[in-house]
């Protein structure tokens, strides 16, 4: 048993480490110039960070991506919570469950370019302006499947006795929801939020078509692909990851506090 376990642990640690390999490389190129694969150590500078901060265009793109991400993820969580609970109720007819699931999965299963073009053409016909708000809608439609499926799976694994017990003890529907159901769904909600945010923050193909004359970060990067990226982008990626790390660190501490209090 021992060697197997050691092997599996090694694989796990190595995988986590390798996930960070591309990040380290990008961080390096934000401080040093790399020439034919050799890092020139003397070239250390913060120049690219300074350039980044004076680049209003990139700054605007990042801000609009953050806005899109936050709003889209919030809306996605609310919608997928409502939908997964609705479809998990025993009283919901079977055909309705199947159809709702199918419709939620439809945009997730289609190549994003189809969803993007479909939304663009529909919005044009209906006279809805393309732009950042359209992008939010597009992202919600796309990532809904993630929250829906993750929550649905967890709900199907929940012990119905938990709810009955709460009801028997006289808890109203809302109390039941907030005090019994929601804590059970905390981890699936958190992971859905993380995954949806990650996808939204990097979504290109739907966004491309409905962003109008607006701009998000991935669209800006996609445009830069043609001519080439400057190390400013390395600096940007480094900063984005740093901020993410700090935020998730804070979340982790919060979450630990919460689970501890539940366990008591």
């Amino acid at each position, binding site marked *: *048993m021992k060697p197997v376990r050691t092997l*599996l*642990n090694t*694989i*796990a*640690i190595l*995988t*986590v480490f*390798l*996930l*960070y390999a*591309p990040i380290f*490389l*990008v961080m390096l190129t934000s401080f040093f110039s*790399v020439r*034919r*694969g050799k890092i020139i150590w003397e070239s250390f500078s913060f120049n690219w960070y300074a350039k980044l901060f004076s680049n209003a265009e990139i700054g605007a793109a990042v801000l609009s991506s953050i806005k899109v991400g936050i709003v889209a993820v919030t809306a996605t969580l609310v919608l997928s919570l*409502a*939908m997964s609970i*609705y479809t998990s*109720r*025993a009283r919901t007819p079977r055909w309705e469950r199947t159809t*709702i699931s199918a*419709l*939620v999965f*439809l*945009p*997730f*299963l*289609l*190549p994003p370019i*189809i969803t993007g073009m*479909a939304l663009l*053409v*529909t919005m044009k016909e209906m006279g809805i302006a393309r732009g950042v708000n359209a992008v939010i809608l597009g992202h*919600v439609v796309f990532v809904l499947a*993630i929250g829906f*499926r*993750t929550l649905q*799976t967890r709900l199907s*694994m929940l012990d119905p006795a938990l709810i009955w017990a709460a*009801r028997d003890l006289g808890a109203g*529907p809302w109390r039941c929801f907030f005090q019994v159901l929601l804590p*059970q769904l905390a*981890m699936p909600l958190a992971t859905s939020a*993380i*995954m949806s*945010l*990650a996808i939204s923050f990097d979504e290109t193909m739907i966004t491309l078509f409905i962003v109008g004359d607006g701009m998000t970060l*991935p669209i800006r*990067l996609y445009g830069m*692909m043609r001519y080439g990226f400057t190390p400013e982008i390395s600096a940007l*990626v480094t900063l*984005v*990851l740093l901020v*993410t790390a700090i935020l*998730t*660190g804070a979340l*982790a501490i919060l979450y630990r506090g919460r689970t*501890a209090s539940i366990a008591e």
Partner: protein
Amino acid sequence: MTAHWFSAAIWRVSIWAFLLMAVLIPIGAFLVYGFFGVEGGSIVYTLSLANYIEVASDPVYRKVLGKTLRIAAEVSVLCFVTGYIVAVFINRQRPVLKYTLIFAVAIPLMMSYVIKIYSMRGLLGHTGFLNQFLIWIGLIDEPLSVFLFNLTAVRMTLVFALVPFSILTTFVGLERIPGATINAARDLGAGPIRIFWTIVLPLSFPSAVVGVMFTFVLSVGDFLAPELVGGVNGLTYGRLIFSQFGIAFNWPLGAALSLVLMVLSFAVIAVAGRLSNPGWLRREDP
């Protein structure tokens, strides 16, 4: 769960209104294009199956579709296995380390995909760090070109980009297995292998399968990784679809190609959904 948590009618109407307006009408209407045709640079709105016949009969589409599905399946299986190993490892740590690690796994997801692929090139390329490392430890004398611009590079890139999704979803399943259940089994004399097969795997399998679903869908439609690290083999089905919407201006064919991909993905999801409902795994259910 028979509780009347909410006034069902309002929920029902809002859920359906959203799905109809934002999903069914736009996408459904667009998929109808698959039955139209193109003549002389404009779309002809007469219904026909010509596009589907073309998709079925042209060996190019079949070949590329087959290759794309195969890569996506391989990537999903790799993600499933690796994701499971990592999630189990993380779940066994003490709470502080556990939640730190699970968030640490999620952070790379926030790195732009395009930049990540470019970075993979910097790692795997001729002048890349892998080659330099191998030369440094003396395994090779000259840098090798075999790490990049082939399908193995595509698989690796996709696995590293997508494995956090499987780790996270699997973890959701593992995390809810009560420690008491495992302790009880151990007290009753069950060995680690038996505990894994009868408790841990059945209870976490549904969540792990959800991860497979996500990685499959996200890799099957992707064309950036294959194009940027796949060399001359980099043509995938997603690019074939994309090319119909550009200057080729053949939306109907593009819509038909998409519908085929969607139906096949739905089939994969349906199978995965069946698997994730673990009736067949729960032999010892009350």
